[in-house]
């Protein structure tokens, strides 16, 4: 099946298994391609973005955007406010759509000021 036992580590718990799998050739590969969930697994997806979500000053920190974000790129700061990781945010706009107080605005990337 595989000449290397390296791939068997994928069956271990999240903490025990390696972040990255290394295989040199076809004989060492596992039976099927498996990717383990690590940050940025599919690349810098922020590059795909056409519209950028901006959290406005009126945010009441309800956390609904955090709950709906399909990519898990909205994070909570210590003071309870939210920040969007633009390295991976694809700009889908679900957070803006779901925000009950309309405090997330989608603006064109070309019009956004880089912080």
């Amino acid at each position, binding site marked *: 099946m595989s000449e290397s036992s390296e791939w068997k580590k*994928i069956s271990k718990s*999240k903490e025990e298994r390696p972040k990255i799998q290394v295989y040199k050739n*076809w004989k060492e*590969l596992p*039976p099927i391609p*498996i*990717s*383990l*969930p690590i940050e940025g*697994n599919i690349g810098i997806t922020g590059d795909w973005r056409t519209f950028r979500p901006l959290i406005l000053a009126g945010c009441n920190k309800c956390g609904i955007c955090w709950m709906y974000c399909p990519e898990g790129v909205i994070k909570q700061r210590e003071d309870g406010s939210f920040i969007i990781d633009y390295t991976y945010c694809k700009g889908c706009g679900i957070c803006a759509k779901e925000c009950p107080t309309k405090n997330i605005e989608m603006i064109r990337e070309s019009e956004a000021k880089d912080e």
Partner: protein
Amino acid sequence: MSKVKDIIQNKETIIIKGNVAAAYAAKSARVQMISAYPITPQTTVVEKLSEFVDGGLMPGTQYIRVESEHSVMASVIGASIAGTRTFTATSGQGLFYMNEMIHWAAGTRLPIVTAIASRGAAPPWNIWADFTDVINSRDTGWMSAFCATHQEIYDEILMSYKVCEDHEVLLPKFVAYGGFILSHTSKPVIIEDQDLVDQYLPPLPDEKGWPHIFIDPDRPMMHGNLIMPSGFYSEFRLKIQDTIMKAKEKIKKATKEFERLFGRNYGNGLIKEYYMDDADVGIVIYGDLALQMEQAIEDLREEGYKVGMVKLRYYRPFPTEDIIEIAKKVDVLGVMDRGTAFGSPTGGPVSGDVLASLYNTGIKTKVLPMMSGIGGREVSLEQQKDQIKILIRLKETGELPDDLIHGTLWHGKLEVK
């Protein structure tokens, strides 16, 4: 799954249809999940299994009803990924409809066993014995085997789990048998003792699932993502080819162990020879046609002809090495197909593979591609004897029959006067 009391099946011989034998095999193998959509001539497999599940005879087995064959395979794939022993059955158009998911099952390396009550491809509608349906799934990475008897359907499904679930194999498999000829006729079939079947088969997967894929929140993983051409895509395809070829040894081992435990012989697993040792004319034949051909061979032996036959049991992996050895024994080898491969060198799927196997081996044996029984056309014992006599004539005179069509003998064509 809740704990339910076990059902003890004792060894008994019952008179059942081929489809019912397939259902009994799934029961004996303690499959944990079944999904199937009825299609003639497979329908009674589904009916019997739902009867078993509903009647509490398959404790712990989930039966999932879906709306199409495509969803059948999708749900079976899901259940198999979750780490269960799965079973389904289909035929003809149903298998064609399933085709996309067939590739997913093999690419995910899931040990799914699927019974196929083979029927001809439409149009025109045809529901009778013809292996074109299972042969259509030839290049998917699934293993495939043909059955010649009712007992073989039951036995082959049990052996399939043994081979497919081997951690060195992990591939799905079709078990094909002729629609109506085997699926709807009744014969005595030995249903084996449950303890003995449990002893033969690997244990059911535990909650950790298969070694290569599982659904577990503590061990999250993703499968089925995109691989760029520069990635390992080609290498993963190579692994399937490497595995299915290496599975030949596992098949031989599983067949030998089956014979030791249950006492029924299926040759070396890949092929079964019949009167081949001193034969100078032989025929490669598969499925239900092989059963009656045994009688034809015996009759011609009585007439003094040194003839033999080879029952092809596995189509994928193809028993190339065995076919080479068989060809060395005889001067003329016929290959009888009940299934079509349009535009291929011979028009028949197996005859093309036999010719390809012998290329570059220096073997001088004459190979005659033959066709009969397409779309369930009846092939009589007399016709089968005639087919062998054509091969004998070829050996004695060196003359090919004058009615070959693109190099192949289509035997038993209708002629209206």
